[in-house]
């Protein structure tokens, strides 16, 4: 009992039956505008707001030196008499007014937030980039080469995965601290942070990419490339990589939010960005002391900024994952 043959599916048109249809090729921009992903974006107010907020923050961070009223970490520009000004209220001594208030050293909170945002975003992006590159490369290698290379990489990944990333980051930081001489600690702090967070995060990229590579490896286009003698490196990068990028993108966005929070946490714990180059987390740590004595704004505004940033990136990641999920279409 056989099934009907599938030859009818090949679009063989009876020639004298139909007029050729008028086919209008949409312009490239139109195609992108009409694509499912863009449509989903346009129709999801949450995603749009999240994207706008994120973009605003990124731009503010980049242009901080121009937007901020002063550079709060340049000691020369500080006036201690400005300390503890309330938001929007002119200072009793100097008469200057700061719309978000000042901290104990007279630093304008608005400016500290902008510069703190810079550090937070910089560390976040770089850490994710590091994790991404490392994870994707190892994943491609593991998936494509297989054998003991794959086993080793995946075992290491598994072991690392049993530990929460914050612990891994703390350990790396602690070890670095012991190794780096005291004079350089503050300067190197940012880079140690990036490496620590990045190293604690590469595993999920590697896993996803390896899984996708295993699937792609058996497809015809890879076998064809092999047959004509292309080198493995070229195959991995030029052929397989573009096809595994979609889930990587989703993970990267969500990782960014996690990296930002991780950095804030480490800075808050005192093992992250130093007070000379504070991130939002450091600012919160500094502000905590003053919260209970009434100067709430020193903690409140950096905390609000951090929350808004993390939330927006998370929302974007969530939306991206749903939009790129083929099963939900």
């Amino acid at each position, binding site marked *: 009992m056989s099934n009907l043959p599938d030859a009818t599916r090949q679009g063989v048109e009876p020639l004298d039956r139909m007029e050729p249809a008028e086919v209008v090729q949409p312009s490239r921009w139109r195609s992108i505008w009409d694509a499912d992903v863009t449509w989903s974006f346009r129709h999801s107010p949450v995603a749009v707001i999240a994207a706008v907020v994120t973009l605003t923050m990124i731009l503010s961070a980049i242009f901080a030196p121009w937007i901020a009223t002063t550079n709060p970490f340049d000691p020369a520009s500080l006036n201690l008499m400005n300390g503890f000004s309330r938001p929007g209220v002119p200072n009793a001594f100097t008469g200057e007014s700061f719309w978000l208030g000042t901290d104990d050293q007279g630093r304008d909170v608005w400016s500290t937030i902008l510069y703190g945002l810079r550090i937070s975003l910089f560390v976040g992006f770089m850490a994710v980039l590091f994790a991404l590159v490392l994870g994707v490369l190892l994943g491609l290698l593991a998936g494509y080469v297989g054998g003991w290379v794959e086993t080793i990489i995946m075992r290491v990944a598994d072991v690392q995965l*049993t*530990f929460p990333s*914050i612990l891994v980051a703390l350990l790396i*930081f*602690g070890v670095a601290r012991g190794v780096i001489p005291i004079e350089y600690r503050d300067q190197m702090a940012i880079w140690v942070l990036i490496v620590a967070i990045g190293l604690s995060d590469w595993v999920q990229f590697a896993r996803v990419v390896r899984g996708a590579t295993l699937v792609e490896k058996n497809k015809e286009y890879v076998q064809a490339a092999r047959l004509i003698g292309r080198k493995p490196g070229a195959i991995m990068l030029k052929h397989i990589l573009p096809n595994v990028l979609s889930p990587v993108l989703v993970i990267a966005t969500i990782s960014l939010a996690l990296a930002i929070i991780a950095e804030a946490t480490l800075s808050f714990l005192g093992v992250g960005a130093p007070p000379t180059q504070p991130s939002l*987390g450091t600012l*919160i740590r500094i502000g905590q002391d003053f919260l*209970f004595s009434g100067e709430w704004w020193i903690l409140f505004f950096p905390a609000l900024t951090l929350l808004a940033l993390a939330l927006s990136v*998370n929302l974007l990641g969530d939306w991206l994952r749903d939009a790129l999920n083929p099963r939900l279409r």
Partner: protein
Amino acid sequence: MLAYIIRRVFQSVIVLLAVGLVAFSMFRFVGDPIENLLGQERTVQDVERLREALGLNDPFAVQYARFLGRAVTGDFGISYRQSRPVSQIIAERAPATLELAFVSGVLALTVGIGLGVFTAIRRDGWAANIIMSVSLIGVSLPTFLIGILLIYLFGVQLRWLPTFGRGDVVDLGWWTTGFLTSSGLKSLILPSITLGLFQMTLIMRLVRSEMLEVLRQDYIRFARARGLSAKSVNFRHALKNTMVPVITVTGLQLGAIIAFAIITETVFQWPGVGLLFINAVQFVDIPVMAAYLMLISVMFVMINLLVDILYVWVDPRLRIDGRHT
């Protein structure tokens, strides 16, 4: 199934050995133990004598073995900072962390699973949407911020609950407990909510997404086609199948609570192992760091092992060949 268990135990041992290696390397290569123990006024002979006494001139493998041997008996050396045996310090502080972890774990599990099931079954209701939105904030709010906010609200403004510390504890010999005093219990509330909140939202979202996935399956469809009641479909069929992957992740999360305790203990000045660890990192107190690492690893590895065994026990499909899907 027995073969599977043996294999997993073997793997766990390998992992522990690897972690031990990392911990030991920290000892050997980071900082100088001699410097920490002898201080500034030391002579070359003192150094040499101490090196001999500590066995620092022996080959790497021998030192590693010795380190492991001592670790197994609970001897982790002397803390650089407190000049006391590390094992003693940890034993003193462990009950605080364990009690905190236990309470937050229970909280996270019950609320997380409950809300997860609810938002999966009533996925389009207004309550579900609100809960999901709030949960997103829960994931975006760093733990320390939650802690600070809670302290500010309930400790400073409302003055209902204590803002730091563990309250009065009762000494039960080798364990100190905060469960038996009212101040002890009150002190537990804010920290356990803080610690549990992240896990709670994670578990909730996981349960929800797993359950939604299960509800899409053919056997659910067939169950509905047989006219089974909603209760039966949702709980007897769907929930049971949801639990299998949830158990794995939840088990791992329980281990993570111990690590996240580091943050919560810092915010609340809770005298547990987490706060101890942070101080050790700041001070580069290697023995404490290494001990913490080893103990945490043992705990994680054991939890993972238990979860894997539980997984095989619950899902009958895996019992035949004992292989992990």
